[in-house]
């Protein structure tokens, strides 16, 4: 097993393509987007099924990559989160096929 970084970005749905482009440009080899169905933040609760506008919808973007690339991406993501609602975390993980990342 080899060490890589896992970046997890909880971000509003309308902004996920912007986040994706940032990850692509930083050279991350891939990412996966999962839908959220509800949440809480800033004193407000939201739920996908009762927001016809989808404007409070969040998604989670998960991307595994080398430390360098993740840190390269983080600079731009910090800028993105200056405009859009979101939370970003990173954590070390072990991967099987290190050449993929």
């Amino acid at each position, binding site marked *: 097993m080899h060490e890589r970084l896992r970046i997890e970005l909880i971000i*509003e749905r*309308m*902004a996920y*393509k*912007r*986040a*994706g*482009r*940032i990850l692509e440009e930083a050279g991350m080899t891939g990412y996966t987007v999962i839908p959220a169905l509800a949440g809480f933040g800033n004193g*407000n*609760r939201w*739920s*996908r*099924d*009762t*927001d*016809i*506008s*989808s*404007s*409070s919808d969040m998604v989670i973007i998960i991307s595994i990559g080398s430390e360098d690339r993740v840190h390269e991406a983080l600079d*731009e*993501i910090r*800028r*993105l989160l*200056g*405009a*859009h*609602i979101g939370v970003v975390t990173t954590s070390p993980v072990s991967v099987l096929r290190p050449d993929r990342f």
Partner: protein
Amino acid sequence: MDVAISTLLSPIILFFVLGMGAALMRSQMSVPEAFSKGLAIYLMMAIGLKGGIEMSKNPLTGEVALVLLGAVVLSFSIPLIAFTFLSLTTKLDRTNAAATAAHYGSISIVTFVAASEAVQLSGLVSSGHLVAAAALMETPAIITALFLAHKGAGSDAQVAGSESGELIREVLLNASVVVLVGALAIGWIAGDEGTQKVQPFFTDMFQGVLCLFLLDMGLNAGRGLRQGWRQLEPATIGFGIYMPLVSAMIAAALCLVLGMNAGDTALLMTLAASASYIAVPAAMRLALPKATPSIYLTLSLGVTFPFNVTLGIPIYIAIAKLVAGEG
């Protein structure tokens, strides 16, 4: 008055009230998002087709072109007025005021449909090209609002990760515009005869599907209102009630100038009075991400939409009859 009551007691409105009531009483029921998005696409296809079929029956005249042009002008200009009111009477910052203004310049297609029913119930006639007007009014308001938001704000740097053209695609090619304009064109090309086989689905089912959709809208509006009203000052809530009346009156004046009949006048007034709650919020998340969705949505979906479908539409119809001299 009779018409007003039978409109209020139509199943469509009653299902909206049911949904809103359930949400306000904190029922946990909901319609799955995927299902109600599917229904929304159905509704827009049906509306577009109907408008296109009706348009195919008459030649496009200069008058029609003028009405469409008037509709575009309304959508461009209403946000200016809305923005002025909001700036003067509320504490909303420039961005939130502009974002909210965009919603009121654009339109709500469900409000339009409810008005079409009521117009018909009142014995008035209306024409297919008002659907084209609806489609044309979706977008211009967004442009005005962006202009208002950025004026004086200095030039902000591009949001990280954004791509040239993404906003324009969202604004010009969002689902409402694509389906409404596309179905309108298809109805126009295929005409009454060519669409005969699809009419059981798009015409006969329409009212029923609308009931289901309005039940969901009621749930959404009620939940939004329950959560969001604390964030709104009284002046903002007031705006959600008087702004539709202001817009409707401006539209009425335009209709008078253009000499439109009472049915078309009522519909254009309703379009002006209605506020978007799907297409514009999406565009705002991309274009003005710092604006607060719970403000503009609670206002548009929780205040203005219920006002329009219950009290607003009967008022617009009554005024339209006066304006067109068909009272």
